[in-house]
Structure formats: C-alpha cells, structure tokens
C-alpha cells in the first residue's frame, strides 16, 4: 500500500506537469510565433516478483509473471513546430515564414540563436532587430533614405530609394535542424541549438524544403485553445483519480492499524 501511495504521488506530479504546460500554452495564445508544448509520460520501472516464463518443470513454464509498477514520470517535454496561423499586419518589417525554418539572430550578448518571430524593427544604425534587441543574421542595414522595403518570397531584400531607384540590400537566410524538437526554448520566441537538435543547416528561403518569406504578415501562436481546454479537463480528472487512490490507500492503512 505504501507502493500505491507513492505510485499515486508520481501520478499527481505528472498530471500537474501537464496542467503547468497547458496553462503556459493558454497564456501564450496570442504570442506571435509561440509554439505549443507537448509532454510525454513514461511508466517507471517494474518490480518483478515472479519472472514470466520461469521454468516450472521439464517442459512447462509459468505463462505470466508477477510485476508491479512504480508509477509514472515525465519522459520528455518539447515544442511542436507546427505552423501557426497567418496574421496580416501590412507592416513592411513583419516577416512570416511559410513552412519550415527559423531566422538566425545574434543576441545582444553575441550568442547566435534562432526564432520564428518575424516582427522586426529598425535600430538607430538602420539594422533589422527584434524587440529584444537581437539582430537578424546576416545583418541587413536599411539605408536612411529608403522610402520602402520589398522582401521577396525567396528572401531578397530590396529598398526603394528616392527618384524611383531600387537597391538590393541583402538576402535573408533560414536555418533548419535535423531534430527541431531538440531545440531549447529560451523565451521571447528564441530557440537555441543543443546537442540534441544538431547543427543548423542554412539555406535560402524556398530551397531544399525551406519555407518562403511572406512580408506584411506575422505567424500567430499555434496553440489550439479547444484542445488545451479538453486537456485541462481530462488532466484535472486524472489528478482527482490519483488523489482518490491515495485516500483509499490511506484508509486501508488506517483500518489495518485499527485491527487491534
């Protein structure tokens, strides 16, 4: 019964991990390019009291053994890189990636990170930066006298200059990873490469399966509110059932104590 208590406790811990993840997802339902999380549970080790298939005699074996489980643990939590819905903003510095890929950016501390948040701004030097100050890589400097900016699906950045002139000022690059789910989320829509994600594979938008760039749009959050709600309901009930097991185990222990 002590085992029942601790197994139920692992269940509570696992279910509350889902509640925490769901609440984070729902809180970010309007965060641009937010990627919802997924938690995978694993059953814990088993205590084998009797081996299945143990030899009983010359040609007979026990058909089943006796094994008792110890509960559950959170086996993995990662992001799901499903495409979010497009939001038209008509702002010329808002870029959305349609398909696979992330923008490489240089964080203020010099580290290279990756993001799908395409809400860029211009800093005092004319460089394209994110709200948190991370610079788009390769750096693109918008001329001070530019009247407008045109970004093609393949990531070519053109500036419209006075007197009807036009100048190509840069080429956007996108990166993919062999295992996107292995990226570590650093908040503010920033992801960092890890040994699990593999090295970034750089390319031009639209080539080798990379997504294309859409100007004047932003990628919304890929959280599905209905799914999150259903998950909350079922998780809460599963949590309750685990507490029920706890109270039954407790009652049984209490009753045992009171035999005499």
């Amino acid at each position, binding site marked *: 019964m002590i085992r029942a208590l601790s197994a139920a406790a692992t269940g509570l811990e696992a279910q509350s991990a889902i509640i925490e993840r769901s609440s984070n997802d729902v809180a970010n339902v309007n965060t641009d390019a937010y990627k919802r999380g997924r938690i995978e549970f694993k059953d814990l080790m088993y205590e084998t009291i009797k081996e*299945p298939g143990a030899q009983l005699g010359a040609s007979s074996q026990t058909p089943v053994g006796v094994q008792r489980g110890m509960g559950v643990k959170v086996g993995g939590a990662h992001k799901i890189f499903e495409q979010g819905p497009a939001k038209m903003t008509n702002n010329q510095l808002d870029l959305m990636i349609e398909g696979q890929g992330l923008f490489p950016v240089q964080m203020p501390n010099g580290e290279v990170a990756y993001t799908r948040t395409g809400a860029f701004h211009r800093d005092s030097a004319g460089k394209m930066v994110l709200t948190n100050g991370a610079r788009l890589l390769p750096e693109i400097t918008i001329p001070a006298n530019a009247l407008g900016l045109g970004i093609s699906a393949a990531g070519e950045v053109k500036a419209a200059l006075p007197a009807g002139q036009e100048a190509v000022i840069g080429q956007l690059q996108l990166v993919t990873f062999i295992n996107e789910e292995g990226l570590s989320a650093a908040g503010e829509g920033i992801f960092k490469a890890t040994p699990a994600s593999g090295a970034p594979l750089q390319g031009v938008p639209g080539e080798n399966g990379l997504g294309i760039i859409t100007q004047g749009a932003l990628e919304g959050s890929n959280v599905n509110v209905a799914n999150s709600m259903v998950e909350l309901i079922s998780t809460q009930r599963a949590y309750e059932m685990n507490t*029920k097991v706890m109270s*039954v185990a407790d009652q049984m222990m209490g009753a045992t104590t009171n035999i005499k």
Partner: protein
Amino acid sequence: MASGIWNATAGAVAQAQVVDTVANNLANADTLGFKKDSVSFREFLAAEEREPTGADIPRGPVKDKDFYPLDGKDQSFVVVDGTYSNFRPGPLKVTNATLDVAIEGPGFFEVSTPSGIRYTRQGSFKLATDGRLVTSDGFPVLASQPGGLAAENPNTAQPVTALQLGQGGLETQGGVSTEAGVAARFINLRDAGGKVSFSPAGEIYAGGELVAKVSVREFLDPRKLRQSAGALFENKDPVNLKAAERSELRQGMLEGSNVNPVEEMTALIRANRLFEQDLKAIKTYGELMQREANDIGKL
C-alpha cells in the same frame, strides 16, 4: 488456534496488491502506449496438511477434522499468481506530426536498447542528430531487414519472408552476434526528417523513395512479455514471436493509454471493500482467540 486468521490475512495482502496495481494503472492513465496491468489470483490449498485417511478411534480431544478428509479446503489461502498486461488497444489521438506513428492491430515496433531488443507500441518517434529514427527515449527503431536502406540497394526491398523473421527472432533472443546484426537494421532518414511518410505496411518513403521498412512484430501470446519501464516489453521466448499479419501503421496518430478510469475506480472500490471484509474477519478471529484465552478458562 484458529488457522483461518491467516486465510483472511492472505486475502488482505492480495487485495492490497490489487490497489498497488490500480494505483500504477491510474498514474499511467495518460502515458502513451501504456498497457494496463491486471492481477490474477490463485487459491492455495494446504492440501498436504493431513492425508485423507480412515478415522481411527480418537484418543485425545476430538475435532471435526478428525472425521472428514478436508483436502486442505479449510485453509485455502489466496496468493497473487500473476500480473499480466491487458493488450487491448488504447485510443488513437490525432497529432498530425510526421514522426508520430500508431499501430492498428496487435503488432509492436522493434527497438534496440542497450540491454537488448525491446518491443513497444509507443510510436512518438524522433530524429537523432545523425538522422537515425529513434524513440523518445533515444533507442533506435529497427527496420525489418539488415541494410534497411533501400535507397542504397533498391532491388533488395522485398517483403520479408517468414524464414528471415524467424532467424532474426532467434538471433535477437540468443544474444549471439546481435550487435552487428542489429546495428545494420537502424533506420537512417538523414536530413529527410520532416518530409517522410509511413505506408500502412510500414514502408518509409522520403521524397517518393523507399528508405526502409519498419519492423513490426506480433506475438502468439503477448501476455508472456515482460514489462520494463518506458512502455517497453521484452520477449524471452523466441517461439512466441511471429511476423506481422494484422498490423497496419497510421501516421500522424499516437496510441494513448488503454487504462479505463471507470474500470480502475471500480476495481479500487472493490479491492477496498474486500480488504475491509478481510480485516473484519481478522478482527473476528482475534475476538474468538481472546474468548478462548480468557473466557474458556473461567468455566
């Protein structure tokens, strides 16, 4: 002294084990590919206690036992004889993720772990950094035949024969030359990661090209499998293994836990009450013994 008190104790211990099992099942109500456990009881007759013989003329105090052969039926203990996984399929959840694959039918995926071949129905696969198809624990998923890269060897991508499967099974069970044989069956998707498709028969296509065929195995009696952590099962009986006949893969879906909360709660209530009744019996025996000790002597 009343021996029945031990019968009641055995019953209480057995019911407590049921509660342990239910607790584990309910804790895993959301674990992908989890198979619920059930407990089977066995009546344990202390039949050899006294041979059924003809009754002699009793010389000492007479008990009813002295006249009738009881075959131990007065002392039928109960023991937990087996726990077995219930392999009823769990509900399929649609995830639309490329590398999520569910098995429809009784089959299992074959995966390679450091401690040998294991079988699982949990198909939330990932890509390792070297392009290998792995489970979420990082164990490589195996192809049905060595050199699973059909792209390198397009002419050998034939259906696996029963003979090959049998050999594979023996090889993995015997632990002989497994390392090389198993490593040759790793599935490498290289950088085709996001764009692969699984056919119902288990063939993996990347860009229209057959890359490998996932190994799906079935068992004559899956209840013989030994459970280990992470929804992995171990097969110790090579005869039990057979080729997949009735299993089909479904891409973009995952199999949930097959734990049914209603059943588990019912089992919990039942075990709880039976436990209480066993305790009641123990208590009653305790009172009887008290009377024997204190009251009979007063007569």
